[in-house]
């Protein structure tokens, strides 16, 4: 007894305690719901069996049914386009802005702070604002494009199946760029200045300095921001609800919105859970890649 106590105070017991506490917390708050969700995807669930655990198991039926639906593959493809498009846009513009403010002209840090306005706005508000900007008949974006001669007729961003997904991507890029910029700015300022001085003395030009110093030194920041971007885009729901509701004809529907639609619009909880499980698999895969890519990182 005493040995156990002393080990807890100072020894392996303490380590175990340290590990057990967050693990227990994670298991309770994230693990159990995840497991419950996975179990639900193998069951037949309706509104009236929601409150009980003993529901009939149906094996892989939910999965088979899901993939038999004609809209499943297009929606998975939309999700891919949305994730890749959003992350690429957010990252490239965010990185560009971070480099721009890194020049440190007068007022740079102030202006950089102001860019965060887009990030602190709630998704539904952003959605409502973009709803007006993207509106077909009286939208600001159409007005600008028309006046500058880029388009001749209005583009119905929200209602044309060819554009609807991109309408949401544009809004999402706007929403996430500032966050990318801030994290990347932090990464940039952590790079020691003498590295650049040395490189400059050795005659490296700006492009070479960027390519051989900035990018390699930013590796872990970039890895983190892309992993976070993946998480944020996969949980982006408000913009879909506010701008297109996944329409028209599912052309802008993505898995996260579809899961909600199935569960809480059609009360098909099992299918909603099934989609969530598929999403979990993808997120797991992405996080493994992320963890592996930053494991050998040595911070400069």
């Amino acid at each position, binding site marked *: 007894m005493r040995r156990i106590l002393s080990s807890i105070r100072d020894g392996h017991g303490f380590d175990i305690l340290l590990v057990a506490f967050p693990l227990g917390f994670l298991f309770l708050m994230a693990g159990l719901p995840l497991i419950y969700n996975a179990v639900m995807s193998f069951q037949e669930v309706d509104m009236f069996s929601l409150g009980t655990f003993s529901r009939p198991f149906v094996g892989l039926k939910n999965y088979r049914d899901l993939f038999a639906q004609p809209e499943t593959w297009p929606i998975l493809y939309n999700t891919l386009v949305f994730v890749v498009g959003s992350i690429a846009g957010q990252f490239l513009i965010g990185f560009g802005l971070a480099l721009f403010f890194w020049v440190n002209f007068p007022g740079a840090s102030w202006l950089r702070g102001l860019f965060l306005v887009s990030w602190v706005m709630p998704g539904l508000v952003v959605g409502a604002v973009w709803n007006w900007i993207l509106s077909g*008949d009286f939208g600001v974006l159409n007005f600008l494009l028309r006046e500058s001669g880029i388009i001749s007729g209005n583009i*119905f961003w929200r209602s044309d199946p060819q554009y*609807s997904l991109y309408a949401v991507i544009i809004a999402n890029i706007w929403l996430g760029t500032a966050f990318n910029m801030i994290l990347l700015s932090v990464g940039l300022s952590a790079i020691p200045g003498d590295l650049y001085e040395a490189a400059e003395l050795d005659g490296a030009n700006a492009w070479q300095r960027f390519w051989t110093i900035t990018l390699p030194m930013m590796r872990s920041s970039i890895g983190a921001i892309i992993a976070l971007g993946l998480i944020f885009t996969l949980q982006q729901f408000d913009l879909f609800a506010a701008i297109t509701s996944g329409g028209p004809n599912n052309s802008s529907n993505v898995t996260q919105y579809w899961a909600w639609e199935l569960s809480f619009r059609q009360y098909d909880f099992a299918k909603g859970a099934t989609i969530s499980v598929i999403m979990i698999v993808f997120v797991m895969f992405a996080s493994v890649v992320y963890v592996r890519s930053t494991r050998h990182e040595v911070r400069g």
Partner: protein
Amino acid sequence: MTIRKFAVIGALALAGVSLMGLSAKAEDVTLTLWSLDKDIQPAPNLIKEFNAQNNGIKIEYRLIQFDDVVTEAMRAYATGQAPDIIAVDNPEHALFSSRGAFLDLTDMIKGSTVIKPENYFPGPLKSVEWDGKYYGVPKATNTIALYYNKDMFKAKGLDPNKPPQTWDELVEDARKLTDPAKNVYGLAFSAKASEEGTFQFLPWAQMGGGGYEHINADGAVKALETWKTIIDEKLASPDSMTRGQWDSTGTFNSGNAAMAISGPWELERMTQEAKFDWGVALLPVPKEGAERSSAMGDFNWAIFSSTKHPAEAFKALEYFVSQDDKLFKNFGQLPARSDISIPETGQPLKDAALKVFLEQLKYAKPRGPHPQWPKISKAIQDAIQAALTGQMSPKEALDQAAEKIKAVLG
């Protein structure tokens, strides 16, 4: 010293209040009621009046958001914590009654002097029915009709007292009224991929001799073809496919659409915002003399079968129903009853509109009733959107919807 004195007085007062509270609770039957009505809407006010009667029944009110009504209610029922009374959207009524979650009120209604089935419009009444029994009482009702801008009719040489009567006339008039140079569309409506889309399309299908059980009837296909013509020729904004009725009618109010299909919930805003002469007409029919139909919206009262006080809960419903005649005056909602004449508001445009809506209500048909309504509705929404975006022909889209609905109906 003084602080102590206050503390003692305070404690005494508290004790007194809680004692009184306790004694009141011991006698009263307490009911819980859930609805989505906010302060200025019927439920909380009716409850206040009901509680003021001090008849031994107290109602506690809980506000739930529109999106949460069904899920909250289901979860509560499944875990044995359902309220005694709930207001539920009419297409979702059957979901509960078919599973025995709502109390069968047929016998109580038979013995009631206040609630009489013959007083109700057939549409709303049918929505509370399941298997020939009554599982609720209509709370209020609404429907859709055609709003039109009389000034624009005049400007385009159309007779402002002859709104379109048939689908062909509607399309014809819309063509004449559409004026891209002035940013004016002929018509505003909603074909959104949500319950609103079904709400707007189903009456057309029903007028064409279809219905949710045979959504691919020839008349229903014709209806969708008419919608497609309207969208393809840009007689209505392509954004109709992602816009709800409220936003669509907003473009009518601002003079960017010459006609709009929507319900009486627009009247208040329209009287304030629309700076032109407008009128309301019955929904156009496929051809002259064809059967009329319209959508039917709004909520129903129901009592959960798990209630411990069915008699008291029914008494509360009787009180609510007895106040139906003030529903429009106080809250701007239409009672679901044909025996109540709604007093004039003094605003001629509004009064004329009301008459049309009350006439239209006679033809209003419920969505369903069917316990799997959301799935049926989804199939219809998919068909509308597939056809209007040109990914399928109206016939193909409705055939596919019929197939999906058949699978649901079993």
